[in-house]
């Protein structure tokens, strides 16, 4: 039946290029490699989950992406979400903060506090987390180009509030290599950026060993046009590049690999996604053990946040995005994600409203409380289809990783713009397929309604908030010890010029209330700025 489809039954090939059969049996599992990479949850190669009991012991952390205006506005929204049962925070920063600019920089005009919270100095970070118990609520900072500075501010704030930094948990995105492929908040050239990521990993391994200084993102590579197998394979190549950078400094793999975490996209075919995550857990464990020689099981864990998938959501009929979000949460739960952040239904229009965020939070709570998703580990394990596809997805990811290595490695391919050009060509073909109806999107190229535009409430942008932020920065500049700031910034310059770890100097500068823009300028005065390659071949 599988090999001779009737002519009126169309072939199906998933996004990663794997042909899908109408029926799977034990023979398919055996032919795809059998159960050699299956094992039990909590045991190498962790295909079925990184912990033996998974959600039976503790459901996933719920961590909606939040931040707007200034630190006080965002602090209030944090407290609203915690009061509604959210168990972690996922902080959105405005673009000036992400690009290493102060709120009073001319390039920041019109952008202060628009797509996230504006942070200029440690003062803002103190306000943002005021009254929040950082032992109970773990915080994820969605920050990349300026991540070293924001990590330093977060650790300094926690220390001053009396938390034990050695025991502090939390995550920074801090994945600069993917910023060159998608998302675009790079600041420094590729090589010094990679060293800066290495500085944060090395520093945290010594000073904040429970803190996850990097969350490697397949997510944005997928958003930029990669297929699911490429998404995960490229993320593993990038994570390996960070590991190489830290190993080069003599830090043993088992001292930091356990604190590497990941962020993946969820939109697409349900079974392909579940297979992607199961396959990825096995492949990452294999890479960390065989290539990097790790011995500790925790070093091999693919710890991840999932649930978002902006490209899956539609501008048309936005209420359907609530339904899509529910399926994304289901896929994340079936895939064994440690943390979920669902895209909100209004995200194709605006930064999410309080109402939209509550719907996303309740969606996850429904799965936990009503649908039995936490009762048993890896509930799709043993399905002939899912096991076969898991084996095939892992083979495809391994092929892509080997191909990247054969072409000289991910750092070179990103520096030259080769990966960017490849995924953007794929995004173009996808858009053409959607417009021609070959790739179906409900509400976009089929099942359209004539109901007109939906009434989505826009998050208002408050110019007064931006002015208040500029005033707060001016106030900090007036009241801080200018001599201490100057010396601290000189320390940052010297550390960058000497090629030593810059984190101790950056921590010193933030404690003196040097600003994001000032510390960034100290670094660029030594390492320069990135220049974007523009390529449009396939």
């Amino acid at each position, binding site marked *: 039946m599988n090999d001779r489809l009737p002519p009126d039954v169309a072939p199906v090939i998933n996004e990663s290029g794997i042909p899908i059969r109408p029926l799977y049996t034990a023979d398919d599992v055996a032919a795809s490699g059998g159960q050699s990479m299956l094992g039990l949850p909590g045991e190498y190669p962790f295909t079925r989950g990184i912990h033996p009991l998974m959600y039976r012991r503790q459901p996933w952390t719920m961590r909606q992406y939040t931040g707007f205006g200034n630190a006080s506005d965002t602090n209030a929204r944090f407290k609203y979400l915690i009061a509604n049962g959210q168990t972690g925070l996922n902080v959105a920063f405005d673009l000036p903060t992400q690009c290493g600019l102060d709120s009073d920089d001319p390039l920041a005009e019109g*952008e202060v506090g628009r797509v996230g919270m504006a942070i200029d100095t440690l003062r803002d970070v103190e306000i943002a987390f005021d009254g929040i118990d950082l032992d109970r609520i773990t915080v994820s900072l969605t920050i990349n180009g300026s991540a070293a500075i924001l990590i330093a501010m977060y650790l300094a704030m926690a220390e001053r509030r009396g938390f034990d930094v050695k025991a502090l948990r939390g995550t920074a995105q801090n994945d600069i290599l993917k910023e060159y492929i998608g998302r675009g908040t790079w600041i420094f050239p590729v090589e010094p950026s990679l060293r800066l990521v290495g500085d944060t990993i090395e520093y945290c391994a010594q000073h904040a060993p429970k803190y996850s200084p990097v969350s490697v993102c397949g997510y944005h590579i997928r958003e930029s046009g990669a297929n699911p197998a490429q998404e995960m394979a490229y993320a593993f190549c990038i994570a390996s590049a960070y590991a190489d950078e830290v190993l080069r400094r003599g830090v043993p793999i088992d001292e930091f690999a356990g604190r590497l975490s990941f962020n993946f996209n969820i939109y697409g075919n349900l079974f392909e996604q579940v297979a992607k995550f199961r396959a990825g857990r096995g492949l990452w464990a294999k890479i960390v053990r065989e290539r990097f020689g790790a011995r500790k099981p925790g070093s091999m864990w693919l710890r991840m946040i999932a649930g978002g998938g902006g490209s899956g959501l539609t501008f048309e009929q936005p209420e359907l995005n609530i339904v899509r979000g529910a399926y994304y949460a289901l896929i994340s739960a079936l895939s064994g994600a440690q943390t979920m952040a669902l895209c909100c239904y209004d995200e194709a229009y605006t930064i999410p409203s309080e109402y939209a965020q509550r719907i996303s939070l309740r969606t996850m709570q429904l799965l936990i409380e009503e649908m039995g998703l936490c009762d048993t580990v890896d509930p799709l394990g043993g399905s002939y289809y899912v096991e076969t596809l898991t084996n095939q997805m892992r083979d495809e990811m391994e092929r892509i990783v080997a191909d990247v290595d054969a072409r000289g490695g991910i750092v070179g391919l990103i520096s030259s713009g080769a990966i960017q050009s490849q995924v953007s060509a794929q995004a173009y073909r996808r858009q053409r397929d959607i417009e021609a109806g070959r790739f179906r999107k409900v509400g976009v190229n089929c099942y359209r309604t004539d109901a007109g535009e939906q009434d989505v409430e826009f998050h208002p942008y408050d110019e007064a908030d931006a002015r208040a932020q500029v005033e707060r920065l001016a106030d900090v500049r007036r009241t801080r010890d200018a001599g201490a700031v100057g010396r601290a910034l000189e320390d940052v310059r010297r550390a960058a010029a000497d090629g030593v770890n810059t984190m101790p100097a950056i921590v010193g500068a933030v404690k003196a209330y040097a600003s994001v823009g000032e510390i960034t300028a100290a670094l660029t005065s030594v390492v320069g700025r990135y220049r974007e390659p523009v390529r449009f071949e396939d």
Partner: protein
Amino acid sequence: MSATARVRPIRVVLAKPGLDGHDQGAKVVVRAMMEAGMEVIYTGLRQTPEAVARIALEEDVDVIALSSMAGSHLAFCRRLKPLLEDAGLGDRLWIIGGNLPKQDHDALRALGFKGVFQTGSRLDDITGFIERDAGAATPAAGEGALP
């Protein structure tokens, strides 16, 4: 003016204004324009209004196109308009696409952005609009233009 009467392909500068890093859509549109036979100068990210006006002038483009996803389109376009006019580019076709709330469309048109393309616009609609409107607007398309 039909496209066949042109003595050179339509030249477009496509810019990413401000700090917004979402360039997937912009790059998709660049490819559609190239496939439609246009010459496209893609600026990359983080362009100031001054940079957009300078590149448009230096490259002698027929079309100035912006792709904005992060909400700062009105502030940017208000600063860009006088710069383009001072550079003598007021007669070129100005268009903008991206995440542009419906309530801002009239303001963008009033600023001189003749084409406003919301998220979800079809690629052929964008290139078709340019072929119609830049065909009429471009000085190089008229009789007596330089070879």
